[in-house]
């Protein structure tokens, strides 16, 4: 137990270290841009945690991040790199929106699960295509998921500008291509008056625990992880590696699709352009920060939810484009994957641990 605790503390120390390194490099960019990094970071880090609005918005952003992050963790666990979150979210959102608009008469208890399932199916198909191409045709999944992102985006635009466009939009012509408003029976309740935080957060956390159960308490999960850790051994043990690669990608894309569904029925109540604010890419950072563990992803997604809303607050406070936070996230990825040298190499690990134990 004591060892376990030390292990967790050690992991956290490495993650915090990674984050600080990323902030340091981000500060250099800020200095190049002629902005005081302390002022910018104060607005980005302190402001969101000191207001109801900031905390509520952090949760709103944590929900899709959690779903995408868990999905990406599943893929990574089977050694598949899923960069297609963005496209999977968008297709999930459009499928969810179309389903809700097509079935307005259904009661809430039926319609909401159906809409979420629609998102899961659309995202799952998109992820599954990349998984299938990897398993059957050895197509590098990074390249295929990136290409599928561009294709999904065009399908998405075509649908919200064309067949699914809001009829009143056509009549009044506000110039914003979007679908009609979802029926009330498909919409999540808001939890706090005047804030956007909604009950989707409960669904997200339940799904996180379900995935944890699936991966660590079932044969399916054991096999999926075995495929990622030792594909050859898994193959000898009779596990159909190909099948698990495809299944992992279907699950991964499906969870991103659910993120899209929840965005539609929880936040925007319609499908519109710019619905996925790069959650597909931020989800990668969240997955890595959560150590590819569904339960680790929960705090990681709150943390990055705070960072995203912090970036917007920074933009308003010191006029630094929130795009900066993308580069900080990129650096976090670089730092986290680099920390494996310390985490996995026994030599460095021992040095680092003894240093850690001495100082604290």
């Amino acid at each position: 137990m004591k060892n376990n605790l030390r292990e967790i503390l050690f992991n956290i120390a490495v993650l915090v270290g990674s984050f600080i390194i990323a902030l340091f490099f981000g500060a250099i960019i800020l200095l190049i841009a002629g902005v005081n990094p302390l002022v910018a970071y104060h607005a980005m880090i302190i402001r969101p945690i000191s207001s109801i609005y900031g905390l509520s918005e952090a949760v709103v952003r944590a929900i899709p991040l959690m779903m995408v992050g868990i999905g990406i963790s599943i893929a990574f666990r089977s050694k598949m790199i899923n960069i297609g979150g963005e496209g999977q979210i968008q297709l999930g959102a459009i499928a969810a929106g179309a389903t809700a608009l097509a079935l307005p008469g259904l009661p809430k208890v039926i319609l909401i699960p159906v809409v979420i399932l629609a998102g899961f199916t659309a995202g799952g198909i998109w992820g599954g295509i990349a998984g299938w191409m990897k398993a059957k045709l050895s197509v590098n999944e990074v390249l295929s998921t990136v290409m599928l992102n561009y294709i999904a985006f065009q399908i998405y635009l075509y649908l919200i500008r064309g067949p699914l466009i809001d009829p009143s939009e056509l009549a009044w012509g506000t110039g914003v291509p979007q679908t009609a408003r979802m029926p009330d029976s498909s919409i999540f309740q808001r939890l706090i008056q005047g804030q956007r935080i909604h009950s989707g957060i409960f669904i997200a956390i339940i799904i996180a625990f379900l995935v944890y159960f699936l991966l660590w308490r079932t044969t399916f999960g054991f096999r999926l992880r075995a495929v990622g850790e030792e594909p050859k051994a898994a193959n000898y043990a009779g596990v159909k590696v190909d099948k698990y690669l495809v299944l992992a990608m279907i699950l991964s894309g499906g969870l991103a699709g659910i993120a899209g569904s929840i965005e539609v029925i929880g936040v925007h109540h319609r499908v519109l352009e710019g619905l996925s604010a790069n959650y597909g890419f931020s989800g990668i950072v969240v997955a890595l920060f959560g150590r590819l563990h569904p339960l680790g992803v929960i705090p990681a997604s709150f943390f990055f939810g705070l960072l995203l809303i912090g970036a917007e607050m920074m933009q308003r406070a010191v006029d630094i484009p929130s795009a900066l936070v993308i580069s900080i996230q990129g650096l976090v990825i670089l730092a986290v994957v680099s920390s494996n040298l310390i985490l996995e190499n026994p030599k460095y690990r021992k040095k680092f641990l003894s240093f850690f134990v001495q100082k604290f």
Partner: protein
Amino acid sequence: MDVSAYLQLAIRILTVAVAVSAPYIFAAIGEMFSQKSGVLNLGVEGIMMLGAFVAFYFAWAHENILLGIILAIIVGGLMGLLMAFVSVTLKAKQGISGIGLYMFGWGVAGTLFRLFVGGVQSIPGLQNLNISGLTDLPYIGRILFSHNILVYLAFLLVPVSWYVLYKTPWGLKVRAVGSTPRAADTMGINVTKIRYQCVILGSMLAGLAGAYLSVAQANMFASDLVAGRGFIAIALVYFGRWKPFGILKGAMLFSIANGFQRWFQISGIAFPYEVTVVFPYVLIIVVLALSHKKFAEPTALTVPYDREFKG
């Protein structure tokens, strides 16, 4: 349309194809060196974005295209240094670290663009360089010799990189390091050094490819300027089976198809706009599916080399 109209169209598409294939050639040849030495650099897209911005900025604010291009190459090299440090020295998982590099370049380019430029601005761009005598040749003259200097450089790069890779001692070392690093190490080749050189060289070429997009092709910068070309370049390395002339073939094929697609859009033939836009990405997926042969891949690709660890 009669025969001469078809001929004119073919010449037009081919001329455009030669011009638009240049950035793919730069980026893909660079990526080829990186992969040949065993490092999969998936950050090409991000490097191209930053390169495109840097070149654009100096062409726009200082009216100095050459300085912009040189700085784009240097910035690309620095990004490569970062990638090499993370993936060679720190032995990070290359597939994911490349994505980190991509997001870093994307974010920095977007941030600096909004801060220093604000909105979309256009610049005069690189002039075409007509070569007296050659440009006036019938048909071929226009297709091959009516371009800016970077296009000639891109096409020159193909045989040069072939020569370097297959006919020089350094090229031999690169190939050895990418296929059997342990044997190379035993022979006294510095695996780390060669990998650093290849990743940095590859990233410099990616920076140049980005610069080409902003100062020689689009003559402007926008946050979606690169639009997946970096990833397409990586796909072309697979398509070309890690060979310079294979990459050239792939880049030309892709650019001709793309030129045809653009002509289709403006030709007035009724066809959904979204389908034509999606076409290049679908084409790349199909090409990847058809061309992938595992045996052509450098065997140590994505495997970090650890001298003390006998794996």
